[in-house]
């Protein structure tokens, strides 16, 4: 009850943040204008529309997740609203979980809104609703869930500015898993060590980027259901570990 009350309050508060709403409006506008961009490349208009839509959802989702994730706990401390919450019979783990779930619900609502517009535009253009596009939007959400857990973890000890750059940098490095993997066999021991650490410790965000495989029918996934299921489980387990670490840190934090 307590965790859900905090999550509900966080969702309602986040949905009133102007910056997040502006990001959503811009993203929805860009998705809605997708068909007009398709005229630039008539033969590939379908590919352009899908690529653009998924890319916009990813970028907007990334910014919304980071902005929500880095603010959700520090804002409570800065505004001193945390005093009236933690002085009540609220366990610190309930607070962290509530904040995470509220932030996650915000990201879900935003991605769902963009996704609905995106799928609507595709249906309007092609008169059918490709299942792969729904999968693409869903994978973006799970990718953002993992990123949000990372932002919440850093927010328990880092300032929002430091957190922004840390989370963003990890997202970038985590998206280059193929590069870090190739560097693990580098001859330079320092490079090899660094690449190994980065490759195995940082989350592999690259695995969630299946847009190319979804957009281009010739690039097929050998077993799409298993691949998607594995990635979802990976995101849930990795997020759970990050939340556990966040709870351990926050449990000793003075507010």
């Amino acid at each position: 009850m307590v965790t859900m009350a905090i999550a509900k309050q966080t969702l309602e508060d986040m949905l009133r943040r102007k910056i997040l709403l502006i990001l959503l409006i811009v993203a929805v506008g860009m998705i809605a204008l997708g068909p007009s961009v398709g005229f630039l490349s008539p033969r590939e208009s379908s590919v352009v529309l899908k690529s653009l839509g998924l890319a916009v959802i990813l970028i907007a989702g990334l910014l919304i997740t980071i902005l929500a994730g880095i603010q959700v706990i520090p804002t409570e401390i800065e505004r001193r609203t945390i005093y009236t919450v933690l002085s009540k019979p609220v366990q610190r783990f309930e607070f962290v979980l509530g904040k995470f779930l509220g932030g996650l619900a915000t990201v879900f609502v935003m991605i769902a809104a963009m996704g609905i517009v995106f799928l609507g535009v595709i249906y309007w253009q092609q008169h059918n609703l490709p299942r792969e596009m729904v999968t693409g939007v869903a994978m973006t959400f799970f990718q953002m869930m993992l990123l949000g857990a990372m932002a919440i973890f850093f927010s328990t000890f880092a300032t929002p500015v430091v957190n922004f750059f840390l989370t963003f940098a990890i997202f970038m490095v985590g998206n280059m898993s193929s590069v870090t993997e190739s560097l693990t066999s580098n001859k330079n021991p320092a490079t090899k060590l660094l690449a190994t650490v980065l490759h195995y410790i940082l989350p592999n965000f690259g695995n969630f980027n299946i847009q190319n495989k979804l957009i281009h029918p010739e690039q097929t996934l050998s077993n799409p259901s298993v691949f998607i299921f594995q990635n979802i489980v990976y995101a849930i387990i990795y997020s759970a570990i990050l939340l556990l670490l966040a709870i351990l840190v926050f449990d000793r934090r003075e507010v």
Partner: protein
Amino acid sequence: MAAAVSIQGLTKKYLDVWNKAEIVAVDHLNLEVQEGEIFGFLGRNGAGKTTTIKMLLGLIFPTEGAATVLGKPLGDIEAKSQVSYLPEEAYFYETMTGWDILDFYARLFRISEPDRSRRVQKALEDVYLDPKAWRRPLRGYSKGMRQRIGIAQALINDPKLLFLDEPTSGLDPIARAELRDVIGNVGKQGKTVFLSSHQLSDVELLCDRVSIIHNGKLLALGRITDLTAGEQVEIHAEGITNGAVDKIRGLVPEVLQTDGRLRIPAAEPGKVASVIDLVRGAKGTVTAIIPHRRSLEDVFVQTVRKAGGDVSVADLKGGEE
């Protein structure tokens, strides 16, 4: 009567990273607040009042010492369900309505419907918040209305113990008087109130006992009637020579001489007769003898000054700790 709050040697030290110095915010504090009393916790800005309250609520952790709240160790969830807190300059979720914010806090106490709605309504009525404002967002509230919401959220769980940090600070006289009534009513219901305040007149009206802390150390503790005991007398005299004034000054150094008149404030009752004899011996006339009861403000200022502290107007009017 059992102790609602019991503090033994509570200490909080901070490390000033830049100056590599240790700051002692609370220094081996010992204190007991009995159940059912309204207890005043006084001190200058930065004396350690808020730090102490935050330790008692488990928001920060003591460096040394121990304390219990309602007989339970600090941070105990069971104790917290019977405790409430109004922080100094409390901020609430601006976009929520008065009703919704109290509903949210009631949920944190695991209060289910229909009891929750009933309690929200009662808390709003108890703090005299205009029903028209109940469903309006907090961003449109005045400071007085926000403070009422602060008190209402502190009453939502029908607590046994309330920690109120500067509850009347920054309010206009009417709002202050109304909130003072609310706190007084809470006390009449047998609840324990731990009241940290700069408004010494409010404290004097509301509290049974007070403590004065300075630089984290306890300087005074006792019933207000005991602490303010001992009257002061002001003697007005005229027509006396400078030589006589010097003699009186030897007895009472605080003599004020203006326009040939003499004012002898803060004279101890035992010295009054001697001063009158000196005035008469110098052919002067005693025009008035005015007795004064010591106020809590006198006690506060004298206690803090005795400990080497400088008391400013801000200390007596309120401000950030």
